[in-house]
Protein backbone atom coordinates (compact mmCIF):
# COMPACT_ATOMS: atom_id res chain seq x y z
CA UNK A 1 0.00 0.00 0.00
CA UNK A 2 1.41 3.28 -1.09
CA UNK A 3 -1.17 5.43 0.70
CA UNK A 4 0.25 8.53 2.28
CA UNK A 5 -0.17 9.06 6.03
CA UNK A 6 -2.09 6.75 8.37
CA UNK A 7 -4.25 4.11 6.68
CA UNK A 8 -7.99 4.86 6.69
CA UNK A 9 -10.08 2.86 9.14
CA UNK A 10 -13.76 2.39 8.40
CA UNK A 11 -15.41 3.33 11.70
CA UNK A 12 -18.35 1.02 10.87
CA UNK A 13 -16.18 -2.08 10.29
CA UNK A 14 -15.97 -3.27 13.90
CA UNK A 15 -19.73 -2.96 14.43
CA UNK A 16 -20.50 -4.92 11.29
CA UNK A 17 -18.11 -7.73 12.18
CA UNK A 18 -19.61 -7.95 15.68
CA UNK A 19 -23.14 -8.09 14.26
CA UNK A 20 -22.19 -10.87 11.84
CA UNK A 21 -20.56 -12.97 14.58
CA UNK A 22 -23.52 -12.36 16.89
CA UNK A 23 -25.92 -13.55 14.17
CA UNK A 24 -23.95 -16.81 13.86
CA UNK A 25 -23.84 -17.35 17.61
CA UNK A 26 -27.62 -16.84 17.86
CA UNK A 27 -28.51 -18.87 14.77
CA UNK A 28 -26.53 -22.01 15.58
CA UNK A 29 -28.49 -23.10 18.69
CA UNK A 30 -31.72 -22.20 16.88
CA UNK A 31 -30.85 -24.57 14.05
CA UNK A 32 -30.00 -27.26 16.58
CA UNK A 33 -33.31 -26.65 18.39
CA UNK A 34 -35.21 -26.92 15.10
CA UNK A 35 -33.54 -30.31 14.48
CA UNK A 36 -32.22 -29.03 11.19
CA UNK A 37 -30.24 -31.97 9.76
CA UNK A 38 -30.24 -31.53 6.00
CA UNK A 39 -27.88 -34.43 5.35
CA UNK A 40 -30.67 -36.84 6.32
CA UNK A 41 -32.36 -35.87 3.03
CA UNK A 42 -29.61 -37.67 1.17
CA UNK A 43 -29.74 -40.83 3.20
CA UNK A 44 -30.71 -43.53 0.65
CA UNK A 45 -33.56 -45.04 2.70
CA UNK A 46 -35.17 -41.65 3.37
CA UNK A 47 -34.78 -40.62 -0.24
CA UNK A 48 -36.59 -43.79 -1.34
CA UNK A 49 -39.52 -43.09 1.00
CA UNK A 50 -39.82 -39.55 -0.34
CA UNK A 51 -39.69 -40.70 -3.93
CA UNK A 52 -42.41 -43.28 -3.30
CA UNK A 53 -44.59 -40.62 -1.74
CA UNK A 54 -44.04 -38.24 -4.65
CA UNK A 55 -44.61 -41.01 -7.22
CA UNK A 56 -48.14 -41.34 -5.86
CA UNK A 57 -48.86 -37.87 -7.22
CA UNK A 58 -48.36 -38.93 -10.82
CA UNK A 59 -50.27 -38.66 -13.12
CA UNK A 60 -52.53 -35.71 -12.23
CA UNK A 61 -56.21 -36.61 -12.13
CA UNK A 62 -58.23 -35.44 -15.14
CA UNK A 63 -61.59 -37.16 -14.69
CA UNK A 64 -64.53 -34.99 -15.82
CA UNK A 65 -66.38 -35.41 -12.54
CA UNK A 66 -63.32 -34.42 -10.53
CA UNK A 67 -62.59 -31.45 -12.81
CA UNK A 68 -66.15 -30.15 -12.31
CA UNK A 69 -65.63 -30.37 -8.55
CA UNK A 70 -62.24 -28.68 -8.96
CA UNK A 71 -63.64 -25.73 -10.92
CA UNK A 72 -66.31 -25.19 -8.33
CA UNK A 73 -63.82 -25.40 -5.47
CA UNK A 74 -61.40 -23.07 -7.27
CA UNK A 75 -64.10 -20.46 -7.74
CA UNK A 76 -64.99 -20.83 -4.10
CA UNK A 77 -61.37 -20.39 -3.02
CA UNK A 78 -60.91 -17.32 -5.21
CA UNK A 79 -64.14 -15.92 -3.80
CA UNK A 80 -63.02 -16.58 -0.20
CA UNK A 81 -59.62 -15.03 -0.79
CA UNK A 82 -60.99 -11.98 -2.60
CA UNK A 83 -63.80 -11.29 -0.17
CA UNK A 84 -61.43 -11.89 2.76
CA UNK A 85 -58.82 -9.48 1.39
CA UNK A 86 -61.49 -6.87 0.63
CA UNK A 87 -62.74 -7.01 4.21
CA UNK A 88 -59.15 -7.06 5.52
CA UNK A 89 -58.50 -3.91 3.47
CA UNK A 90 -61.47 -2.21 5.12
CA UNK A 91 -60.07 -3.18 8.53
CA UNK A 92 -56.47 -2.22 7.68
CA UNK A 93 -56.79 1.20 6.03
CA UNK A 94 -58.25 3.19 8.94
CA UNK A 95 -55.96 1.47 11.44
CA UNK A 96 -52.90 2.17 9.26
CA UNK A 97 -53.94 5.81 8.83
CA UNK A 98 -54.18 6.14 12.60
CA UNK A 99 -50.94 4.27 13.32
CA UNK A 100 -48.71 6.05 10.76
CA UNK A 101 -46.27 8.26 12.59
CA UNK A 102 -45.57 10.55 9.66
CA UNK A 103 -49.20 11.73 9.78
CA UNK A 104 -48.87 12.85 13.38
CA UNK A 105 -49.66 16.52 13.92
CA UNK A 106 -48.61 16.18 17.55
CA UNK A 107 -45.05 15.35 16.51
CA UNK A 108 -44.78 18.78 14.88
CA UNK A 109 -46.39 20.33 17.90
CA UNK A 110 -47.82 21.48 20.18
CA UNK A 111 -46.45 19.05 22.72
CA UNK A 112 -49.72 18.72 24.60
CA UNK A 113 -51.43 16.67 21.90
CA UNK A 114 -48.30 14.61 21.41
CA UNK A 115 -48.88 12.28 24.35
CA UNK A 116 -52.47 11.62 23.31
CA UNK A 117 -51.36 11.00 19.74
CA UNK A 118 -48.69 8.55 20.86
CA UNK A 119 -51.24 6.72 23.00
CA UNK A 120 -53.72 6.42 20.12
CA UNK A 121 -51.00 5.21 17.73
CA UNK A 122 -49.78 2.65 20.26
CA UNK A 123 -53.34 1.47 20.71
CA UNK A 124 -53.84 1.05 16.97
CA UNK A 125 -50.57 -0.85 16.67
CA UNK A 126 -51.51 -3.10 19.59
CA UNK A 127 -54.83 -3.90 17.93
CA UNK A 128 -53.06 -4.73 14.65
CA UNK A 129 -50.66 -6.98 16.55
CA UNK A 130 -53.50 -8.77 18.30
CA UNK A 131 -55.41 -9.33 15.04
CA UNK A 132 -52.47 -10.92 13.27
CA UNK A 133 -50.89 -12.73 16.22
CA UNK A 134 -53.68 -15.33 16.24
CA UNK A 135 -53.33 -17.64 13.21
CA UNK A 136 -56.19 -17.57 10.73
CA UNK A 137 -56.85 -21.26 11.33
CA UNK A 138 -57.75 -20.50 14.95
CA UNK A 139 -60.11 -17.72 13.86
CA UNK A 140 -61.55 -20.14 11.28
CA UNK A 141 -62.21 -22.74 14.01
CA UNK A 142 -63.95 -20.04 16.05
CA UNK A 143 -66.08 -18.78 13.17
CA UNK A 144 -66.96 -22.30 11.95
CA UNK A 145 -68.60 -22.83 15.32
CA UNK A 146 -70.58 -19.60 14.94
CA UNK A 147 -71.44 -19.76 11.22
CA UNK A 148 -71.30 -23.47 10.58
CA UNK A 149 -69.20 -25.27 7.95
CA UNK A 150 -68.61 -23.34 4.73
CA UNK A 151 -66.76 -20.45 3.10
CA UNK A 152 -68.25 -17.72 5.33
CA UNK A 153 -66.03 -18.70 8.25
CA UNK A 154 -62.96 -18.60 6.01
CA UNK A 155 -63.79 -15.10 4.80
CA UNK A 156 -64.12 -13.76 8.33
CA UNK A 157 -60.94 -15.49 9.50
CA UNK A 158 -58.98 -13.94 6.62
CA UNK A 159 -60.51 -10.52 7.25
CA UNK A 160 -59.32 -10.54 10.86
CA UNK A 161 -55.78 -11.94 10.50
CA UNK A 162 -55.00 -10.34 7.16
CA UNK A 163 -56.49 -7.04 8.32
CA UNK A 164 -53.82 -7.06 11.02
CA UNK A 165 -51.06 -7.96 8.57
CA UNK A 166 -52.10 -5.44 5.91
CA UNK A 167 -52.47 -2.68 8.50
CA UNK A 168 -49.01 -3.29 9.93
CA UNK A 169 -47.29 -3.41 6.56
CA UNK A 170 -49.27 -0.43 5.17
CA UNK A 171 -48.11 1.58 8.18
CA UNK A 172 -44.50 0.60 7.60
CA UNK A 173 -44.65 1.30 3.87
CA UNK A 174 -46.17 4.73 4.51
CA UNK A 175 -43.54 5.52 7.12
CA UNK A 176 -40.59 4.37 5.03
CA UNK A 177 -41.27 6.70 2.12
CA UNK A 178 -40.41 10.40 1.95
CA UNK A 179 -42.21 11.94 4.93
CA UNK A 180 -41.48 15.59 4.09
CA UNK A 181 -44.47 16.06 1.77
CA UNK A 182 -46.91 15.01 4.50
CA UNK A 183 -45.19 17.17 7.07
CA UNK A 184 -45.28 20.18 4.76
CA UNK A 185 -49.04 19.76 4.24
CA UNK A 186 -49.72 19.30 7.96
CA UNK A 187 -47.69 22.44 8.62
CA UNK A 188 -50.06 24.28 6.29
CA UNK A 189 -53.10 23.12 8.24
CA UNK A 190 -54.10 20.10 6.16
CA UNK A 191 -56.33 17.46 7.77
CA UNK A 192 -54.62 14.09 8.28
CA UNK A 193 -56.76 12.22 5.75
CA UNK A 194 -55.97 14.76 3.04
CA UNK A 195 -52.26 14.64 3.88
CA UNK A 196 -52.39 10.83 3.64
CA UNK A 197 -53.81 10.87 0.11
CA UNK A 198 -51.97 13.94 -1.22
CA UNK A 199 -48.54 13.26 0.22
CA UNK A 200 -48.01 9.63 1.25
CA UNK A 201 -50.17 7.44 -0.99
CA UNK A 202 -48.87 8.83 -4.33
CA UNK A 203 -45.33 7.78 -3.47
CA UNK A 204 -46.30 4.43 -1.98
CA UNK A 205 -49.16 3.35 -4.29
CA UNK A 206 -47.16 0.74 -6.21
CA UNK A 207 -45.77 -0.88 -3.11
CA UNK A 208 -49.14 -0.84 -1.33
CA UNK A 209 -50.82 -2.46 -4.34
CA UNK A 210 -48.16 -5.10 -4.81
CA UNK A 211 -48.23 -6.07 -1.15
CA UNK A 212 -52.04 -6.28 -1.22
CA UNK A 213 -51.96 -8.57 -4.27
CA UNK A 214 -49.26 -10.68 -2.61
CA UNK A 215 -51.51 -11.03 0.43
CA UNK A 216 -54.35 -12.13 -1.86
CA UNK A 217 -52.02 -14.85 -3.13
CA UNK A 218 -51.26 -15.84 0.47
CA UNK A 219 -54.99 -15.87 1.19
CA UNK A 220 -55.49 -18.37 -1.65
CA UNK A 221 -52.92 -20.67 -0.02
CA UNK A 222 -54.26 -20.04 3.48
CA UNK A 223 -57.69 -21.12 2.35
CA UNK A 224 -56.21 -24.62 1.90
CA UNK A 225 -55.37 -24.91 5.57
CA UNK A 226 -58.75 -23.50 6.50
CA UNK A 227 -60.41 -25.93 4.15
CA UNK A 228 -58.98 -28.67 6.34
CA UNK A 229 -61.16 -27.42 9.17
CA UNK A 230 -64.21 -27.29 6.94
CA UNK A 231 -64.10 -23.68 5.72
CA UNK A 232 -64.71 -24.74 2.11
CA UNK A 233 -62.90 -24.29 -1.20
CA UNK A 234 -59.88 -26.09 -2.64
CA UNK A 235 -58.66 -26.89 0.87
CA UNK A 236 -61.64 -29.02 1.63
CA UNK A 237 -61.23 -30.84 -1.70
CA UNK A 238 -57.53 -31.33 -0.98
CA UNK A 239 -58.39 -32.69 2.45
CA UNK A 240 -60.70 -35.27 0.92
CA UNK A 241 -58.20 -36.30 -1.75
CA UNK A 242 -55.39 -36.69 0.79
CA UNK A 243 -57.58 -38.73 3.11
CA UNK A 244 -58.44 -41.05 0.24
CA UNK A 245 -54.70 -41.21 -0.59
CA UNK A 246 -55.52 -39.97 -4.10
CA UNK A 247 -52.20 -38.40 -5.11
CA UNK A 248 -53.34 -37.68 -8.67
CA UNK A 249 -56.15 -35.46 -7.46
CA UNK A 250 -53.82 -33.74 -5.02
CA UNK A 251 -51.34 -32.93 -7.77
CA UNK A 252 -54.09 -31.48 -9.99
CA UNK A 253 -55.09 -29.26 -7.08
CA UNK A 254 -51.46 -28.22 -6.60
CA UNK A 255 -51.24 -27.33 -10.30
CA UNK A 256 -54.35 -25.19 -9.83
CA UNK A 257 -52.55 -23.36 -7.02
CA UNK A 258 -49.59 -22.83 -9.28
CA UNK A 259 -51.91 -21.29 -11.88
CA UNK A 260 -53.51 -19.01 -9.29
CA UNK A 261 -50.10 -17.78 -8.11
CA UNK A 262 -49.13 -17.04 -11.70
CA UNK A 263 -52.39 -15.11 -12.12
CA UNK A 264 -51.60 -13.11 -8.97
CA UNK A 265 -48.15 -12.32 -10.32
CA UNK A 266 -49.56 -11.06 -13.60
CA UNK A 267 -52.21 -9.03 -11.80
CA UNK A 268 -49.57 -7.42 -9.62
CA UNK A 269 -47.46 -6.55 -12.65
CA UNK A 270 -50.43 -4.95 -14.42
CA UNK A 271 -51.43 -2.89 -11.38
CA UNK A 272 -47.86 -1.72 -10.84
CA UNK A 273 -47.62 -0.68 -14.46
CA UNK A 274 -50.87 1.28 -14.24
CA UNK A 275 -49.72 3.02 -11.04
CA UNK A 276 -46.17 3.68 -12.23
Amino acid at each position, binding site marked *: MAAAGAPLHDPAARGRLTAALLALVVLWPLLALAEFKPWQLFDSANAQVMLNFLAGFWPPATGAEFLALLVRATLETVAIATAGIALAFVVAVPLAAVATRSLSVGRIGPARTRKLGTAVRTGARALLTFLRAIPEIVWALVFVRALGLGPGAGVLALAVTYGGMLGKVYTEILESGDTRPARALLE*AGSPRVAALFY*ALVPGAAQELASYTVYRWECAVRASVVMGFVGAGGLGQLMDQSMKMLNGGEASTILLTFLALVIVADALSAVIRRVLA
Partner: protein
Amino acid sequence: MSATEDHLRLADGELVHPNGQRALRGVSLRLSAGERAAVVGPSGAGKTTLIRVLGASLRPTRGQLEISGTDPWQLAAGALRRLRSGIGIVHQSPPIPPRLRVVTAVLAGRLGTRPAWQSLLSLVAPIDAEGARAALARLDLGERVFDRCDRLSGGQLQRVGIARVLYQQPALLLADEPVSALDPTLADASVGALVAESEARGATLVASLHAVDLALKWFPRLIGMRAGEIVFDRPTAAVTTAMLHELYATEGRELPRQGVDALVEDVRPPNVVVLKRPGCQ
Protein backbone atom coordinates in the same frame (compact mmCIF):
# COMPACT_ATOMS: atom_id res chain seq x y z
CA MET B 1 -45.48 50.39 19.12
CA SER B 2 -47.89 47.97 20.70
CA ALA B 3 -47.41 44.25 20.30
CA THR B 4 -50.76 43.76 18.63
CA GLU B 5 -49.70 45.73 15.57
CA ASP B 6 -46.96 43.24 14.86
CA HIS B 7 -47.97 40.39 12.62
CA LEU B 8 -44.95 38.39 13.64
CA ARG B 9 -42.89 38.67 16.79
CA LEU B 10 -40.05 36.47 17.93
CA ALA B 11 -38.50 37.33 21.28
CA ASP B 12 -35.12 35.92 22.23
CA GLY B 13 -35.63 32.81 20.08
CA GLU B 14 -33.23 29.95 20.72
CA LEU B 15 -33.24 26.64 18.92
CA VAL B 16 -31.07 23.65 19.69
CA HIS B 17 -31.47 20.72 17.30
CA PRO B 18 -31.77 17.22 18.81
CA ASN B 19 -28.15 16.54 17.80
CA GLY B 20 -27.06 19.40 20.05
CA GLN B 21 -26.37 21.85 17.24
CA ARG B 22 -27.39 25.40 18.17
CA ALA B 23 -29.14 26.83 15.13
CA LEU B 24 -30.56 30.02 16.65
CA ARG B 25 -29.20 32.08 19.53
CA GLY B 26 -31.16 34.93 21.02
CA VAL B 27 -32.94 35.96 17.85
CA SER B 28 -35.48 38.76 18.24
CA LEU B 29 -37.52 39.99 15.35
CA ARG B 30 -40.70 41.96 14.64
CA LEU B 31 -42.61 42.34 11.43
CA SER B 32 -45.76 44.36 10.97
CA ALA B 33 -48.56 43.10 8.76
CA GLY B 34 -47.69 43.35 5.08
CA GLU B 35 -44.00 43.96 5.73
CA ARG B 36 -41.38 42.32 3.49
CA ALA B 37 -37.95 41.26 4.68
CA ALA B 38 -35.15 39.16 3.23
CA VAL B 39 -32.85 37.01 5.35
CA VAL B 40 -29.31 36.74 4.02
CA GLY B 41 -26.16 35.11 5.30
CA PRO B 42 -23.68 32.32 4.61
CA SER B 43 -24.92 28.72 4.51
CA GLY B 44 -25.31 27.23 7.96
CA ALA B 45 -26.22 30.65 9.38
CA GLY B 46 -29.62 29.42 10.58
CA LYS B 47 -31.76 30.97 7.83
CA THR B 48 -33.83 27.82 7.24
CA THR B 49 -34.32 27.29 10.96
CA LEU B 50 -35.46 30.89 11.40
CA ILE B 51 -38.01 30.54 8.58
CA ARG B 52 -39.37 27.33 10.09
CA VAL B 53 -39.56 28.80 13.59
CA LEU B 54 -41.45 31.83 12.21
CA GLY B 55 -43.84 29.47 10.40
CA ALA B 56 -44.68 27.55 13.60
CA SER B 57 -43.26 24.36 12.15
CA LEU B 58 -40.31 24.18 14.54
CA ARG B 59 -40.83 25.01 18.17
CA PRO B 60 -38.10 27.24 19.58
CA THR B 61 -36.23 25.65 22.46
CA ARG B 62 -36.44 28.95 24.32
CA GLY B 63 -38.02 32.29 23.61
CA GLN B 64 -41.46 33.25 22.44
CA LEU B 65 -43.14 33.43 19.06
CA GLU B 66 -46.31 35.42 18.49
CA ILE B 67 -48.29 35.39 15.27
CA SER B 68 -50.98 38.09 15.23
CA GLY B 69 -50.61 38.41 18.97
CA THR B 70 -51.04 34.75 19.90
CA ASP B 71 -48.45 32.12 20.74
CA PRO B 72 -49.16 29.26 18.31
CA TRP B 73 -47.59 26.76 20.69
CA GLN B 74 -50.25 27.49 23.31
CA LEU B 75 -53.21 27.02 20.96
CA ALA B 76 -55.58 24.07 20.97
CA ALA B 77 -55.21 21.65 18.06
CA GLY B 78 -58.14 23.04 16.05
CA ALA B 79 -57.14 26.68 16.42
CA LEU B 80 -53.54 25.85 15.55
CA ARG B 81 -54.68 24.08 12.39
CA ARG B 82 -56.68 27.15 11.34
CA LEU B 83 -53.69 29.38 12.06
CA ARG B 84 -51.40 27.10 10.06
CA SER B 85 -53.74 27.17 7.07
CA GLY B 86 -52.85 30.87 6.89
CA ILE B 87 -49.10 30.21 6.89
CA GLY B 88 -47.50 29.27 3.59
CA ILE B 89 -43.90 28.05 3.48
CA VAL B 90 -42.01 27.71 0.19
CA HIS B 91 -39.38 25.03 0.78
CA GLN B 92 -36.00 25.02 -0.89
CA SER B 93 -36.51 21.49 -2.20
CA PRO B 94 -40.23 21.26 -2.93
CA PRO B 95 -41.88 18.57 -0.77
CA ILE B 96 -43.96 17.18 -3.62
CA PRO B 97 -44.23 13.45 -4.40
CA PRO B 98 -42.93 12.86 -7.96
CA ARG B 99 -46.01 10.91 -9.07
CA LEU B 100 -48.41 13.72 -8.27
CA ARG B 101 -49.79 15.75 -11.14
CA VAL B 102 -48.90 19.43 -11.13
CA VAL B 103 -52.56 20.41 -10.75
CA THR B 104 -52.90 18.25 -7.62
CA ALA B 105 -49.64 19.56 -6.18
CA VAL B 106 -50.88 23.14 -6.51
CA LEU B 107 -54.42 22.45 -5.28
CA ALA B 108 -52.85 20.89 -2.17
CA GLY B 109 -52.17 24.49 -1.13
CA ARG B 110 -55.73 24.87 0.12
CA LEU B 111 -56.10 21.54 1.95
CA GLY B 112 -56.19 23.51 5.19
CA THR B 113 -59.26 25.52 4.22
CA ARG B 114 -61.25 22.90 2.29
CA PRO B 115 -63.29 20.16 3.90
CA ALA B 116 -61.41 16.86 3.63
CA TRP B 117 -64.12 15.21 1.53
CA GLN B 118 -63.80 17.94 -1.11
CA SER B 119 -60.04 17.48 -1.20
CA LEU B 120 -60.44 13.73 -1.62
CA LEU B 121 -62.96 14.18 -4.45
CA SER B 122 -60.52 16.59 -6.03
CA LEU B 123 -58.05 13.73 -6.43
CA VAL B 124 -60.51 12.14 -8.85
CA ALA B 125 -61.61 15.29 -10.68
CA PRO B 126 -59.64 18.48 -9.88
CA ILE B 127 -61.94 20.86 -8.05
CA ASP B 128 -60.31 24.11 -9.23
CA ALA B 129 -57.99 23.38 -12.15
CA GLU B 130 -58.53 26.94 -13.39
CA GLY B 131 -57.27 28.39 -10.11
CA ALA B 132 -54.23 26.10 -10.20
CA ARG B 133 -53.45 27.16 -13.74
CA ALA B 134 -53.74 30.84 -12.82
CA ALA B 135 -51.23 30.36 -9.98
CA LEU B 136 -48.88 28.46 -12.29
CA ALA B 137 -49.23 31.07 -15.03
CA ARG B 138 -47.77 33.69 -12.69
CA LEU B 139 -44.60 31.57 -12.70
CA ASP B 140 -44.72 30.93 -16.42
CA LEU B 141 -45.83 27.29 -15.97
CA GLY B 142 -49.49 27.56 -16.96
CA GLU B 143 -49.20 25.03 -19.77
CA ARG B 144 -47.81 22.27 -17.50
CA VAL B 145 -50.90 22.05 -15.30
CA PHE B 146 -51.77 18.45 -16.20
CA ASP B 147 -48.22 17.10 -16.37
CA ARG B 148 -46.82 14.79 -13.77
CA CYS B 149 -44.30 16.35 -11.41
CA ASP B 150 -41.61 13.79 -12.30
CA ARG B 151 -41.71 15.13 -15.85
CA LEU B 152 -40.54 18.55 -14.66
CA SER B 153 -37.02 19.85 -14.23
CA GLY B 154 -35.74 20.81 -10.78
CA GLY B 155 -36.33 24.47 -11.50
CA GLN B 156 -39.87 23.86 -12.75
CA LEU B 157 -40.67 21.79 -9.68
CA GLN B 158 -39.37 24.57 -7.44
CA ARG B 159 -41.77 26.95 -9.19
CA VAL B 160 -44.64 24.48 -8.67
CA GLY B 161 -43.78 24.70 -4.96
CA ILE B 162 -44.08 28.49 -5.15
CA ALA B 163 -47.35 28.21 -7.10
CA ARG B 164 -48.79 25.99 -4.36
CA VAL B 165 -48.16 28.68 -1.77
CA LEU B 166 -49.49 31.45 -4.05
CA TYR B 167 -52.64 29.35 -4.49
CA GLN B 168 -52.87 28.91 -0.72
CA GLN B 169 -53.14 32.71 -0.31
CA PRO B 170 -51.68 32.74 3.20
CA ALA B 171 -51.55 35.86 5.36
CA LEU B 172 -47.97 34.94 6.25
CA LEU B 173 -45.73 34.03 3.33
CA LEU B 174 -42.43 32.42 4.22
CA ALA B 175 -39.88 31.29 1.67
CA ASP B 176 -36.70 29.31 2.30
CA GLU B 177 -34.28 29.81 -0.61
CA PRO B 178 -37.27 29.71 -2.99
CA VAL B 179 -35.28 30.26 -6.19
CA SER B 180 -32.06 28.31 -5.53
CA ALA B 181 -32.64 26.01 -8.53
CA LEU B 182 -33.60 28.72 -11.02
CA ASP B 183 -31.60 30.56 -13.63
CA PRO B 184 -31.09 34.31 -13.01
CA THR B 185 -34.00 35.54 -15.13
CA LEU B 186 -36.52 33.06 -13.70
CA ALA B 187 -35.21 33.60 -10.17
CA ASP B 188 -35.79 37.31 -10.53
CA ALA B 189 -39.29 36.83 -11.94
CA SER B 190 -40.24 34.28 -9.27
CA VAL B 191 -39.14 36.47 -6.36
CA GLY B 192 -41.07 39.21 -8.13
CA ALA B 193 -44.18 37.01 -8.12
CA LEU B 194 -43.85 36.43 -4.36
CA VAL B 195 -43.42 40.16 -3.75
CA ALA B 196 -46.37 40.98 -6.01
CA GLU B 197 -48.54 38.50 -4.08
CA SER B 198 -47.53 40.12 -0.81
CA GLU B 199 -48.29 43.59 -2.22
CA ALA B 200 -51.63 42.57 -3.72
CA ARG B 201 -53.03 40.96 -0.56
CA GLY B 202 -51.05 42.73 2.13
CA ALA B 203 -49.44 39.44 3.16
CA THR B 204 -46.32 39.55 5.29
CA LEU B 205 -43.34 38.07 3.43
CA VAL B 206 -40.07 36.77 4.84
CA ALA B 207 -37.70 35.09 2.40
CA SER B 208 -34.24 33.69 2.93
CA LEU B 209 -32.14 34.24 -0.15
CA HIS B 210 -28.71 33.06 -1.10
CA ALA B 211 -28.38 35.71 -3.78
CA VAL B 212 -27.69 39.07 -2.18
CA ASP B 213 -28.55 41.00 -5.33
CA LEU B 214 -32.12 39.63 -5.35
CA ALA B 215 -32.54 40.57 -1.70
CA LEU B 216 -31.28 44.08 -2.36
CA LYS B 217 -33.50 44.51 -5.35
CA TRP B 218 -36.82 43.28 -4.04
CA PHE B 219 -36.88 43.78 -0.28
CA PRO B 220 -37.09 47.02 1.70
CA ARG B 221 -35.64 45.33 4.80
CA LEU B 222 -32.61 43.11 5.13
CA ILE B 223 -31.78 40.75 7.98
CA GLY B 224 -28.21 39.49 8.03
CA MET B 225 -27.55 36.25 9.90
CA ARG B 226 -24.42 34.39 10.81
CA ALA B 227 -23.84 31.48 13.21
CA GLY B 228 -27.45 31.55 14.41
CA GLU B 229 -27.43 35.22 15.30
CA ILE B 230 -28.80 38.34 13.69
CA VAL B 231 -25.82 40.46 12.68
CA PHE B 232 -27.83 43.33 11.26
CA ASP B 233 -31.49 44.10 10.66
CA ARG B 234 -32.17 47.37 8.90
CA PRO B 235 -33.73 49.05 5.89
CA THR B 236 -32.06 47.90 2.70
CA ALA B 237 -31.00 51.45 1.89
CA ALA B 238 -28.95 51.51 5.08
CA VAL B 239 -27.11 48.27 4.34
CA THR B 240 -23.58 48.94 3.09
CA THR B 241 -21.47 46.74 0.89
CA ALA B 242 -18.94 46.59 3.69
CA MET B 243 -21.58 45.11 6.01
CA LEU B 244 -22.37 42.43 3.45
CA HIS B 245 -18.72 41.60 2.92
CA GLU B 246 -18.28 41.28 6.65
CA LEU B 247 -21.38 39.06 6.89
CA TYR B 248 -20.05 36.65 4.31
CA ALA B 249 -16.42 37.11 5.37
CA THR B 250 -15.58 37.68 1.71
CA GLU B 251 -13.15 40.53 1.89
CA GLY B 252 -11.93 41.39 -1.53
CA ARG B 253 -13.96 38.63 -3.14
CA GLU B 254 -17.37 38.60 -4.72
CA LEU B 255 -20.64 38.39 -2.83
CA PRO B 256 -22.95 35.46 -3.64
CA ARG B 257 -25.18 36.69 -6.42
CA GLN B 258 -27.81 35.39 -8.75
CA GLY B 259 -26.21 37.52 -11.44
CA VAL B 260 -29.07 39.62 -12.69
CA ASP B 261 -26.53 41.94 -14.24
CA ALA B 262 -28.96 43.85 -16.37
CA LEU B 263 -31.03 44.82 -13.37
CA VAL B 264 -28.62 45.57 -10.54
CA GLU B 265 -25.49 47.59 -11.04
CA ASP B 266 -22.32 45.62 -10.95
CA VAL B 267 -20.03 48.02 -9.22
CA ARG B 268 -21.25 49.84 -6.20
CA PRO B 269 -19.55 52.61 -4.30
CA PRO B 270 -18.42 51.22 -0.93
CA ASN B 271 -21.28 52.60 1.14
CA VAL B 272 -24.13 52.98 -1.29
CA VAL B 273 -26.43 50.23 -2.43
CA VAL B 274 -28.02 50.85 -5.76
CA LEU B 275 -31.58 49.72 -6.04
CA LYS B 276 -33.32 49.41 -9.32
CA ARG B 277 -36.67 47.85 -9.28
CA PRO B 278 -38.65 48.39 -12.43
CA GLY B 279 -42.37 48.50 -12.08
CA CYS B 280 -42.55 48.69 -8.31
CA GLN B 281 -42.75 51.61 -5.97
